[in-house]
């Protein structure tokens, strides 16, 4: 076991875990814009619960991607090029979603607002599904040749793990979004979110759990059983508290479920970062896909300084915007009228 590549494997798992934990609820709230909110006021309440934080959350994705590029260039190159078409769709989804957050409130007509709402909803769904599918395939394998390039056409990656990972992340985001609304809103939205959460929580977490179990079984990993067991306990814990309407504990429980699940997946996959389904000899591993010790050492220093700082100021942001938002807090829409 080489120290630095292993450390960076762990750090990349942390970045993906951080991304799914944080953007998990804002992707969920995005999807709920069209499926949960009942009227314009409620949609704006939903939007404003994540308004100040979504962009900071999305940087976790960018950092996970860039850190993979820096620490495991072969992993980054093979994964991103093999999943070319689905990643184009993820990019399109993220573009529309980001622009819609900023421009929705500036729309003048109901039609335009509705279009931006759909952009947020479908954009969140596609991004969640795509990232889930990508991570599932990275942990279960892609048809890669000796050079690490995809064999078999643009859709050769498609299999049941892609679907499982996609559904797993989408469903997790939905319930995490509901739990977040329980924490961040008041009134009808809060009570309804809590009710739906209590009913759907276990079902929604199952696909993600199934993905974790599949990776553990595929790799015959005994070490991964510990985080897997923790994930199951956290699931039960979250469900109990969701039923008691303890919003904070349910949210925390689901967060632990996610992080333990991601830990189980990455522990089980280790030392593979991207297996080849064609020949195990072509597997990309922490050893053969990583950067030099010099670069990894430099990046470790940067991460040791940067990552705690990110956690500190992002945590502070959540503290600043800790107040619950209800329909009464939403100012009237402001129409910009030309004066010249």
């Amino acid at each position, binding site marked *: 076991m080489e120290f630095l590549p292993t450390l960076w494997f762990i750090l990349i798992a942390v970045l993906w875990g951080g991304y799914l934990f944080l953007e998990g609820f804002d992707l969920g709230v995005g999807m709920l814009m069209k499926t949960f909110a009942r009227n314009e006021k409620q949609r704006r309440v939903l939007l404003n619960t994540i*308004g*100040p934080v979504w*962009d*900071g959350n*999305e*940087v976790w994705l*960018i*950092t996970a*991607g*860039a850190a993979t*590029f*820096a620490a*495991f*260039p*072969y992993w*980054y*190159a093979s994964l*991103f*090029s*093999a*999943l*070319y078409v689905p*990643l*184009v769709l993820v*990019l399109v989804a*993220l573009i*529309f979603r*980001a*622009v819609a957050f*900023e*421009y*929705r*409130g500036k729309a003048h007509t109901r039609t335009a607002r509705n279009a931006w709402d759909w952009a947020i909803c479908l954009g969140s769904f596609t991004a969640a599904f795509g990232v889930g599918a990508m991570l599932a395939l990275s942990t279960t394998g892609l048809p890669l040749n000796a050079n*690490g*390039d995809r064999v078999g056409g*643009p859709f050769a990656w498609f299999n049941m793990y892609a679907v499982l990972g996609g559904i797993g992340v989408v469903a997790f985001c939905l319930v995490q979004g509901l739990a977040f609304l329980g924490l961040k809103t008041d009134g009808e939205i809060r009570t309804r979110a809590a009710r739906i959460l209590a009913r759907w929580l276990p079902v929604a977490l199952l696909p993600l759990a199934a993905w974790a179990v599949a990776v553990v079984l595929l790799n015959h990993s005994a070490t991964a059983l510990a985080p897997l067991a923790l994930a199951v306990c956290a699931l039960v814990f979250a469900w109990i508290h969701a039923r008691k309407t303890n919003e904070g504990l349910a949210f925390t429980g689901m967060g632990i479920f996610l992080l333990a699940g991601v830990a189980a997946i990455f522990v089980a996959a280790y030392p593979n970062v991207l297996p080849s389904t064609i020949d195990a000899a072509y597997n990309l591993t922490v050893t053969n896909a990583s*950067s*030099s010790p*010099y*670069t990894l050492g430099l*990046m470790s220093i*940067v991460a040791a300084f*940067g990552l705690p700082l*990110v956690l500190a*100021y*992002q945590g502070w*942001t959540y503290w*600043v*915007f800790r107040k619950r*938002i209800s329909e*009464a*807090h*939403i*100012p*009237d829409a*402001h129409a*910009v*009228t*030309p004066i*010249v």
Partner: protein
Amino acid sequence: MDALEIARWQFGITTVYHFLMVPLTIGLGLVVAVLQTAWHRTGKEEYLRMTKFWGKLFLINFIMGVATGIVQEFQFGMAWSEYSRFVGDVFGAPLAMEALLAFFVESTFLGLWIFGWDRLPRRIHLAAIWIASLASILSAYFILVANSWMQHPVGTEIINGRAVMTDAWAVFTNNTALVTFPHTIFGAFAVAGGFLLGISWYHLYKRRHSGIDTVDADGKVVVGESATLGRNRDKVDYRVWIKSLRIGAVVAMVAFAGVALSGHAQAQLMIQQQPMKMAAAEAACHDGTGFSLLSIGDLRSGGATTCDDVVGVFEIPGLLSFLAHDNFTTEVKGVNTLLPEYQEKYGTHLPDNPIYGDRAGTEINYLPVMEVTYWGFRLMITLGGLSAVAAAVALWLTRKGTVPHSKWISRLALFGMLAPFGANSAGWIFTEMGRQPFVVAPNPSFEGIDQVFMYTAAAVSPGVSAGEMLFSLIVLTLIYAVLLVVEVVLLTRYVRGGIGSAMPELHDRPDDGQKDTDVLSFAY
């Protein structure tokens, strides 16, 4: 077109597009931070209005930069996997640092600034915009370190066929990066200055056109107020636009001076580091000292290995030597001298390696597309220079406190905003096209590093088909086109709304003095 050609078009289109938003974000961000500081210090109403108005336009633009920036980071792996494998060890580090140390800060603190009005203590709210804006400049530094390494690789060795970083200090203090960074940042301020100038001019003109402001016998402004249109066309409104106009003009002029000086330093490095790029920028076939104002003939390089067809029509003797060497006599090598040098050093044909696909074993053309380099270079300089002259003229024309009552000049001021954008794009297109046929240009001046280079033909993803590339090229180009229209429509609407578009309290609740404390001061 094969996958390589499509991938290049895609990278060009998405990057030039992304870089329409970036300079405005960088330049306007710092301007807004300074304006808010002015408000914080003086308490003057006009500075608050300026902060809110320019801040609103800043955000409409910022989000497009964010959205298109993700594409930039993903497409190295998606479309350029061989490049990513070859350079990841050294090129990935600045990108990862950009995300971790700069972009995180920018996004988080901008969120705090947008939603933090009246919720954060004033000092902290002010600090938020400063932190976000400085982070965007830091972000530019990291990206330019990465790009400069492609122009002039340093601190790297080839180990097992890939570029491996051996000296981070050298990479992060690459002299190419140290001159490109100020050039790019000043370029961003030229964009922001022109933006302030054009829009403020338009508003001052409209105030005159509506008869709110008039001029006395000496041509001095007599500021008026419009009673009918609400509080936001009062005398404070006048001060908003005249101050913005002057700030914009000064910023644009200072920025041009910075761009010119740093550009001069860049040219001197380029002549050593990428002599062919400089020769192609001049369409100079033969060694010489003159800067070409106009050259005619066949600038195209399609397969050509000589460039005897280009004839210089007007030349300024000695200027090229001054640009390159700070004197008027040292000859600058022309294309016909350089071509054999490149061929001798790096070979005449691409190696017979499957990495080159159909191009394996074909002849290498070391001559960039001279139509693009020659005119790109001149367009950059011309548009940049015109913007600075226009800014000086604007200051002079407004010396008596308002703009001339001329629709024609007001239109010129408004469309003139595009010139600095054009200069930025032209400069990037020149420098990236001028690097061809290399994606990582060889560094001629260091011992032991002369193996670190890569042909663009070797960089593309071997596993991705031309069909997939074409799919993404079409999808992204269409979406970008639609979103550009949306952004321009929104910017136009907010500009035409004046201050009231950024400060609804001026429109909606005039003078009731009470504020509903439960209602959020800003909400999406």
